[in-house]
């Protein structure tokens, strides 16, 4: 047998001081943080807990900066191997920063990076004392990634088991989030009535557990379903319910998607000029939070609407803005044929409408 005693340094930062310590850390440029680590109390578990909490809160509003912050923290904790906190705390913080980084990458469309971060999170959480709960959170993120990759059957198969795990662990909010993925998968699979029922139950439960965030996102999805079913009035009611909550939460991803949903609804009703405004509002939100892939996707949809309005030269400009980003970010490996056709047609100054629709149709599926 071999073993060692874990030594436990006394904490230098109290939980009361931790929030201001976290603010100091995040206000310090990343390049300076390692040098100022002692001054910033960066290896103190209270500081790290508060920083992780802030990063989780900012995932939907600034995913790009959260990814960079999480990346820095993970590397800082990882090497050189630092004695952080008590018992399993170093492993927990490694896992948590990896999970946050992976979630940010998922939101930013960086799927391979996201998977790599989730692998790191699982590896680190393996050494924690509450590993099942932490693994379940990683499993949720992996399921969300599958949904974004349109693996609907897998999501519908795996979600109930994960919901059961969360319920067993008494993590009711996470269970609700998981049912949310199930509802989106139903929606994506055109099982709109089942999806609508599930979203309505999620709205009720979100109100019960006091989760404004889930309530707003479920409302947004109900809006979309009403939109698909041509139920404009009901859709507007859901938008009116969701928007103020999203604004209060500063959930800019949610706000952008809400504009996106409204834009589609307006478009389906033939209100093209209004839909252009709504698409542009969505694009502005995506752009301000660094979601380049989504900005490119909106460019394509805008091009389609502009073609419908007979504004071909404006449409060409929109496509030209989108193509380099799509290529650079390797966004649509499955849609490469449509991408090539579209690029060629733009070169010939006559947009291939079918290729454009194939490409943004693919985006619509993966965005919702």
């Amino acid at each position, binding site marked *: 047998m*071999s073993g060692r005693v874990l030594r436990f340094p006394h904490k230098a930062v109290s939980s009361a001081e931790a929030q201001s310590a976290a603010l100091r850390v995040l206000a310090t440029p990343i390049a300076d943080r390692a040098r100022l680590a002692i001054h910033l109390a960066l290896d103190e578990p209270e500081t790290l*807990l508060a920083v992780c909490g802030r990063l989780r809160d900012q995932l939907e509003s600034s995913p790009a900066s959260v990814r960079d912050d999480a990346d820095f923290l993970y590397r800082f904790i990882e090497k050189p191997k630092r004695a952080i906190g008590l018992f399993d705390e170093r492993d927990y913080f490694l896992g948590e920063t990896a999970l946050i980084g992976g979630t940010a990458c998922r939101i930013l469309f960086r799927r391979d990076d996201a998977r790599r971060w989730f692998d790191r999170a699982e590896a680190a959480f393996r050494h924690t004392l*509450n590993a099942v709960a932490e693994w379940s959170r990683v499993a949720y993120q992996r399921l969300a990634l599958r949904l974004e990759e349109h693996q609907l059957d897998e999501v519908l198969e795996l979600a109930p088991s994960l919901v059961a795990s969360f319920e067993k662990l008494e993590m009711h909010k996470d269970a609700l989030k998981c049912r949310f993925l199930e509802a989106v998968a139903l929606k994506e699979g055109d099982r709109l009535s089942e999806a609508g029922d599930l979203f309505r139950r999620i709205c009720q439960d979100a109100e019960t557990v006091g989760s404004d965030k889930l309530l707003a996102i479920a409302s947004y999805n109900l809006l979309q379903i009403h939109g698909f079913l041509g139920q404009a009035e009901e859709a507007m009611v859901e938008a009116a319910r969701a928007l103020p909550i999203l604004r209060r939460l500063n959930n800019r991803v949610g706000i952008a998607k809400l504009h996106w949903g409204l834009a589609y609804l307006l478009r389906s009703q033939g209100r093209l000029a209004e839909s252009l405004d709504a698409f542009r509002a969505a694009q502005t939100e995506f752009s301000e939070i660094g979601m380049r892939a989504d900005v490119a996707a909106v460019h394509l949809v805008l091009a389609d609407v502009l073609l419908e309005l007979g504004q071909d030269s404006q449409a060409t400009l929109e496509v030209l803005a989108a193509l380099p980003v799509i290529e650079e970010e390797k966004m649509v490996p499955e849609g490469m044929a449509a991408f090539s056709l579209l690029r060629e047609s733009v070169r010939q100054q006559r947009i291939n409408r079918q290729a454009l629709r194939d490409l943004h149709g693919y985006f619509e599926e993966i965005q919702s």
Partner: protein
Amino acid sequence: MNTILSKRVDEVDSVFKRTLPMVHSSLISAYRLSEVEATEAERDLEVWFHRLSRRGSGAQVPPKSLRVSLLAAACQYGRSFQIWRLRGSPSRDKSLNDVLSREPQEMASDLAHHFAEDS
């Protein structure tokens, strides 16, 4: 500190205090720590347990659900301490060897089971 947060801290505190006698007796009786060593361990366990309750997963569950993790941490502490003290050699105390041969999580689950029966 807002009221909800303060209530949560009180709940965590209450769970810790209710579990402490079992933690103490495990450290003393099962892992053969001295009173002083056990008290020192319990101080660290209290700090750690409060932070556990504020983690990404811990923050949303009722504190009593984290009891088994507290017991696992206590068992891990006791086990690591004794293995270090024995420098890898077996003890002359057979029951201590039996305890050290078990995984802390397994020990903790048994203790939590007894706790549920006692409550």
